[in-house]
């Protein structure tokens, strides 16, 4: 505990150097700006802004990414409330009451409770990450390849089969991602797989290209086809921004409860901020003293889900940093940013690159403060961003998104792949196949394969290694149960 405190202080000394502070500030500002754009979620924001960090050192770049990650989330809530277009599934719960508050002329307090709630939840969650990460690292250092493989299988199961409306479609998305992951040179034997003689494919498919293809190109094709001729109603931001005393009294218990719900969901590799946001919404609806206001714009219904989202997204940094396991599409893109710098997150990261990790964690505290300052007084400016006409907005998004994919290798092949992924994204969106499992499968699949082979090399080819070691066996058993039990329950109910 005191050790973590000392490391954190050291981290602040790194994060507070003028340049790192500048990168953090740039990150949160750009992140908020792009995050405000309707239809752009945090995963796409991070992917789009990746080329900008090309000149920075690893620490500076990751501090900027952390800022973008947080900023995109804060920015997204503005759009959700004023436009009722949640940029990601985790914002849907916020939109329920938030947009109704805005319709009743209470957009100011709704935005304020989001920003302050995000700050409170984000800060508490960051403290918890600081305390929890070293503990997880201690445990993770004892893990061998078999345990890592089991944890990755667990993450696969939760992100694809447990979350979402259909296990079959979630798993399909995951397997498409896994298939894309085996394209290229096999890291263990040097043989090429499914590259079809295209030299550009030998390096494998970049997560950024997949994320931009699914989230930007697919989205533009879909929105163009099905929603480009809709009238959109931007709610006016009038009256006071400030919350009344009563608003405060109703908000703060919701923030704290939501943090308690959101953080655990993010920090076990269970993936997705969607479930905790709806759980928080349901909790607030049940506990409120003003049940008649729900459905007409109740402030608890905004404060809770938004804080839960933030706490869970921050919590997701625990598995990402300590185990190298991303549990959301955004975390997967962040992981690829790490990999671009030759850094593989995991317990060793805390030992080998302490400066980087603690500088990054310290910058999260600073980022939350900056975002609070940026968001409330400047909300008028962010609202102007929402007034950009849709044709120009989507054209601009595609100009920058394709730039992000092209500038990785300056390759036309990447642009062709990008368009194919765009078509895939269109089909997936239209027929309700979730996209996050594909992104996670692409980046985590090859890592899982490597761990499995290492485990088998140690056991000299005996597959029993996965089920004879207690930790690995129990994680695999839980994953299996998560997959099978809901199916059996369904079958039993039917008969």
């Amino acid at each position, binding site marked *: 505990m005191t050790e973590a405190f000392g490391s954190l202080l050291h981290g602040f000394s790194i994060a507070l150097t003028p340049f790192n502070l500048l990168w953090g500030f740039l990150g949160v500002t750009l992140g908020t700006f792009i995050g405000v754009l309707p239809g752009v979620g945090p995963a796409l924001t991070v992917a789009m802004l990746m080329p900008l960090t090309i000149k920075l050192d690893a620490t500076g770049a990751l501090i900027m990414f952390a800022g973008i990650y947080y900023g995109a989330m804060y920015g997204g809530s503005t759009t959700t409330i004023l436009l009722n277009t949640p940029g990601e599934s985790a914002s849907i719960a916020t939109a329920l009451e938030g947009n109704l508050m805005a319709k009743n002329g209470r957009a100011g307090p709704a935005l304020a409770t989001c920003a302050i709630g995000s700050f409170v939840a984000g800060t508490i969650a960051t403290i918890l990450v600081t305390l929890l990460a070293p503990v997880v690292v201690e445990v993770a250092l004892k893990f061998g390849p078999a345990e890592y493989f089991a944890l990755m299988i667990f993450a696969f199961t939760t992100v694809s089969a447990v979350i979402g409306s259909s296990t079959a479609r979630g798993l399909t998305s995951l397997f*498409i991602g896994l298939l894309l992951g085996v394209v290229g040179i096999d890291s263990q*034997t040097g043989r090429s797989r499914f590259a079809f003689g295209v030299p550009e494919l030998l390096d494998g498919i970049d997560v950024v290209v997949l994320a931009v293809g699914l989230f930007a190109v697919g989205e533009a094709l879909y929105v163009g086809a099905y929603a480009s001729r809709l009238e959109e109603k931007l709610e006016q931001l009038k009256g006071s921004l400030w919350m009344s005393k009563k608003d405060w009294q109703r908000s703060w218990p919701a923030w704290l409860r939501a943090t308690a719900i959101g953080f655990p969901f993010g920090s076990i590799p269970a993936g997705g901020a969607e479930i905790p946001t709806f759980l928080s919404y349901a909790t607030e609806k049940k506990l409120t003293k003003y049940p008649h206001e729900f459905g007409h714009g109740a402030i608890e219904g905004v404060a809770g889900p938004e804080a839960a989202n933030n706490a869970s997204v921050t919590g997701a940094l625990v598995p990402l940093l300590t185990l190298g396991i991303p549990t959301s599409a955004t975390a997967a893109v962040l992981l690829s940013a790490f990999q671009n710098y030759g850094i593989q997150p995991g317990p060793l990261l805390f030992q080998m690159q302490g400066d980087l990790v603690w500088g990054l964690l310290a910058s999260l505290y600073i980022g939350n403060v900056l975002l609070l300052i940026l968001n409330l007084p400047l909300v008028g400016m962010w609202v102007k961003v929402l007034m950009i006409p849709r044709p120009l907005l989507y054209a601009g998004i595609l100009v920058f998104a394709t730039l992000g994919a092209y500038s990785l290798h300056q390759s036309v092949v990447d642009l062709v792949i990008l*368009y194919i992924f765009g078509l895939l994204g*269109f089909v997936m969106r239209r027929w309700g196949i979730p996209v996050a499992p594909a992104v996670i499968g692409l980046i985590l699949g090859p890592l899982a394969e490597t761990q499995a*082979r290492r485990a*088998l090399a140690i056991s000299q*080819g005996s597959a029993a290694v996965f089920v004879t070691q207690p930790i690995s066996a129990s994680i695999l058993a839980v994953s299996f149960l998560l997959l099978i039990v809901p199916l059996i329950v369904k079958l039993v109910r039917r008969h």
Partner: protein
Amino acid sequence: MRYKRAELILSLAILFLGIAVAIGTSQLSSAGGYARIGPNVAPMIISGGLILLGAWLSYEALSGGWRNAVPDDPEARGEHPIQASAFVWVSAGLIAQIFLIHSAGFVLAQAALFLCVARGFGSVKFVRDFAIGLVLGLGVFLFFVKFLNVNLPAGWLQPLLGGAGI
């Protein structure tokens, strides 16, 4: 029996993708060294998974449709009926970009993309859109080439851009 054609086609596509992967896998080496599993094992598992999922989804499609499916009626999704021209224009922009970027150069390719996408979303101010696309493309080009030292193709604008880019 009632079934949804699009869902069945997609399900079968997944099934055939799995079979194609299995065929491709049969050409991969199975030599795995110490681990005893070669580069062919992961693709084999993936192809098995895709075949199973394709079969599962086909079964769902044939027995009343995919479970918890997205409504087919755009209005039920809060959207308008499909505007095929928008899809075509956005696609045209991306394909134009693919063909232009290494001939006409980055700036013109991005301007063409911008113009087409804006058209797809219903804008009819072509000159304005093209001009905005040019300015955006030029700004990004100069920022990347001069500031980030990332080379982008200058193409036809090479004489104007004064040797910047490739």
